[in-house]
């Protein structure tokens, strides 16, 4: 299919230098900025994680006083979730969604720029809160009141950062929904869309559904803190548990917001390197939608120890366990896609397989958490920390790495250094497991989360975990090196660097020109 490039477009005269990036309305520029911002935030969040792991290297207090430790934990969670993982997915959507559906750009190109440029403001609020009197928020990334009513100005800065991040996410989500619904190339019916586009469509719905609720919660927290309202205060007829319900009504869908696009990425990579179409495309779509719908009715599984009525416990337990069914369908479909394919194992494929392998472990520990009696045992312990790092780091993050290696040749027209990239995968795989696998046992043996210091029986496993974490951290600096090396002087990449790549973006030249699909391609 020949793609005619209109290089004399009316909006081709864009400013150069820094102003190009500040004022741009181009989805590729904006996608690039999202990805770099996300990586910068990943380093900040990772730095905080290194602080946590260094303090936990041995029992006793060595480098972080307890209050600062709590701030590290809190900001690590917030920055990783809102600063690293979510923007990375939005960046990927910005780059890929228009390319994959044959659209010239995002539906609201100017607003798209704003969605991005709100992020640095929120990032500044979060990071600079470490340096204000009273220090950064220290109530956990879930900022449960009344504890979060206690902190100083850092808590307010976090609240406003969350407002701004929410605004950014909502605008980004509306943009993605509109682009997908309204700007597909002729012939690209919904059921012909690549899986990555589908998963993002559903994710975007989840975002508009729950981000405003988060904004509402933090607003209540703010007025409780400063204007004397009693939403979360028993003396005034409010309830701290109310906060938890509203927070998790947002928070649980939020974790699927961080995994559905990852499912999409893996569903692109696996067929490409298996040289075989995705098995069960339509059941993949329905499974994604079911996961999204179910995710809205399971939130209280984070609250099994608050003392809900029996029926509540049981309802949320059953609903949560049900999510394993559509997720299982996805895992089985991926396996069936690989079955009798003609597989090769380039870096994206390695990350995709690593994703499936470790995500399933994380999913299993999730199901174990869903079983109320067991959760009552492991709630707020390192078992939960292990669970969600398996789904977030070896889930979301691995998928993002896979996506970067998969599309990097298209983005910058050059191939990454294959040897180094594969090494990045193997080192990540090994160190990740060293860092987090042992945390399951720490949790089962009774180590609570969010503590700066622990009793002696946990010492050896914490040390192992810390060593793995340091190794994992250093490995990610290596990733930075690989990406820069690729941009600077990688080998020239072919337009279709992957033999099995069948989606629209591979019909374009590499690197993808500044403007693409100004005249929509026609899908047979």
């Amino acid at each position, binding site marked *: 299919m020949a793609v005619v490039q209109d290089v004399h477009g009316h909006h081709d005269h864009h400013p150069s230098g820094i102003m190009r990036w500040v004022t741009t309305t181009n989805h590729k520029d904006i996608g690039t900025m999202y990805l770099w911002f996300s990586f910068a935030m990943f380093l900040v969040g990772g730095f905080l994680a290194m602080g946590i792991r260094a303090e936990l290297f041995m*029992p*006793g207090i060595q480098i972080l006083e*307890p209050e600062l430790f*709590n701030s590290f934990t809190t900001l690590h969670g917030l920055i990783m979730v809102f600063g690293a993982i979510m923007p990375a997915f939005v960046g990927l959507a910005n780059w890929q969604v228009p390319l994959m559906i044959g659209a010239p750009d995002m539906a609201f190109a100017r607003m798209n720029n704003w969605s991005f440029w709100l992020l640095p403001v929120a990032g500044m609020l979060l990071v600079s809160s470490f340096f204000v009197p009273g220090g950064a928020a*220290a109530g956990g990334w879930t900022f*449960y009141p009344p504890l979060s009513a*206690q902190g100083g100005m850092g808590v307010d800065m976090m609240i406003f950062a969350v407002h701004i991040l929410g605004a950014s996410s909502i605008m980004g989500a509306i943009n993605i929904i509109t682009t997908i619904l309204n700007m597909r190339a002729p012939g690209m019916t919904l059921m012909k869309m690549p899986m990555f586009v589908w998963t993002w469509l559903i994710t975007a719905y989840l975002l508009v559904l729950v981000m405003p609720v988060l904004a509402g919660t933090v607003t209540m927290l703010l007025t409780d803190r400063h204007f004397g309202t009693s939403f979360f205060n*028993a003396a005034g007829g409010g309830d*701290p*548990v109310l906060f938890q319900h509203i927070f998790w009504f947002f928070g649980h869908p939020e974790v699927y917001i961080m995994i559905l696009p990852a499912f999409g990425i893996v569903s692109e990579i696996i067929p490409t390197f*298996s040289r*075989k*179409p*995705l*098995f*069960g495309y339509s*059941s993949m779509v329905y499974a994604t939608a079911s996961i999204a719908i179910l995710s809205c009715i399971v939130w209280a599984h984070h609250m099994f*120890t*608050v*003392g809900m*009525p*029996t029926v509540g*416990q*049981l309802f949320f*337990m*059953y609903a949560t*366990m*049900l999510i394993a069914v559509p997720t299982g*369908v996805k895992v*089985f479909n991926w*396996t*069936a896609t690989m*079955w*009798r*394919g*003609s*597989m*090769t194992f*380039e870096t994206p494929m390695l990350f995709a397989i690593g994703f499936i*392998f470790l995500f*399933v472990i994380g999913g*299993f520990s999730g199901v*174990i958490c869903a*079983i109320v*009696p*067991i959760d*009552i*045992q492991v*709630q*707020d312990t390192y078992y939960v920390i292990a669970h969600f790092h398996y789904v977030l780091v070896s889930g979301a993050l691995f998928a993002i790495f896979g996506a970067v290696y998969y599309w990097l040749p298209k983005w910058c027209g050059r191939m990454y250094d*294959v040897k180094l990239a*594969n090494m990045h995968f*193997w080192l990540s795989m090994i160190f990740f*497991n060293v860092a987090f696998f042992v945390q*399951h046992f720490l949790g*089962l043996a*009774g180590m609570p989360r*969010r*503590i700066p*210091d622990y009793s002696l029986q946990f010492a050896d496993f914490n040390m192992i975990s810390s060593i793995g974490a340091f190794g994992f951290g250093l490995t990610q600096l290596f990733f930075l090196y690989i990406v820069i090396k690729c941009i600077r002087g990688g080998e020239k990449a072919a337009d279709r660097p992957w033999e099995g790549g069948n989606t629209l973006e591979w019909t374009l030249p590499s690197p993808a020109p500044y403007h693409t699909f100004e005249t929509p391609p026609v899908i047979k």
Partner: protein
Amino acid sequence: MWGEYMSSKSVMTLLGSATLALYSSMAFSLDETSKYFHPQPQSVIAQETYDQHILALWICLAIFIVVFGVMFYSILKHRKSTGYKAANFHHSTVVEIIWTAIPLLILIAMAFPATKTVVAMKDTSEPDITIKATGYQWMWGYDYLQGEGEGISFFSKLSTPVAQVKGTEAKGENYLLEVDNNVVVPVGKKIRVITTANDVLHAWWVPAFGVKQDAIPGFIRDTWFTANKPGVYRGQCVELCGKDHGYMPIVVEVMEADKYTQWVADKKKASAAVVNTAAVGN
């Protein structure tokens, strides 16, 4: 070793089996006294929880072996480098129904015993002794509200010296898990624990009994346990409650009935003495 498109069979197999071994080690570390696993269950609920966890682990391990057995077989056999040509099938309603139904059945099997335990856990009626545990930043307050020992009331604070935390002194055996006043209960009696808090959220947890209950300021919550064996059981506050969240342990001492009676008598005498001196002081 990091050859181009590093995918030699041996590395894949090695890694696959290594991780599998690691994962299954979880199911095999059933040695009941392992310090890396659940503490030994000391109540009916804890035992049921423990058994359900082991069951869930075996189920997960089995699913894991089936799924990744198939996947790794495919990875080994269906690769381009061995000249394997790709098939072109892309859906099958029958298998999709099968692999939706089977997990559903497995989940029902797991949910069934859990449901029974949940119902039992929530039944706090007719306790022998009721103790109120109040979370403070950062210690626990205990009030014996009903049953033998009614009226006893004391605070329970971390007793590990700061020097051990700072590392200027060697850490003792029960570092961070020791308090000045243990909660004392008789063996084999149903103890209802009422939790509440004075300032922020806390949570009262003793792993060996399988109880964990958040303590919420302004609200009352409850849970219960019946200890199987005399001994000293340790737990910690498990809801982030600020600076010293890591430093408010819970220690429950379970005694034979007669020893417990003795303890109650001693405690009452001691508090009477305190009241007397206070009166004299006035």
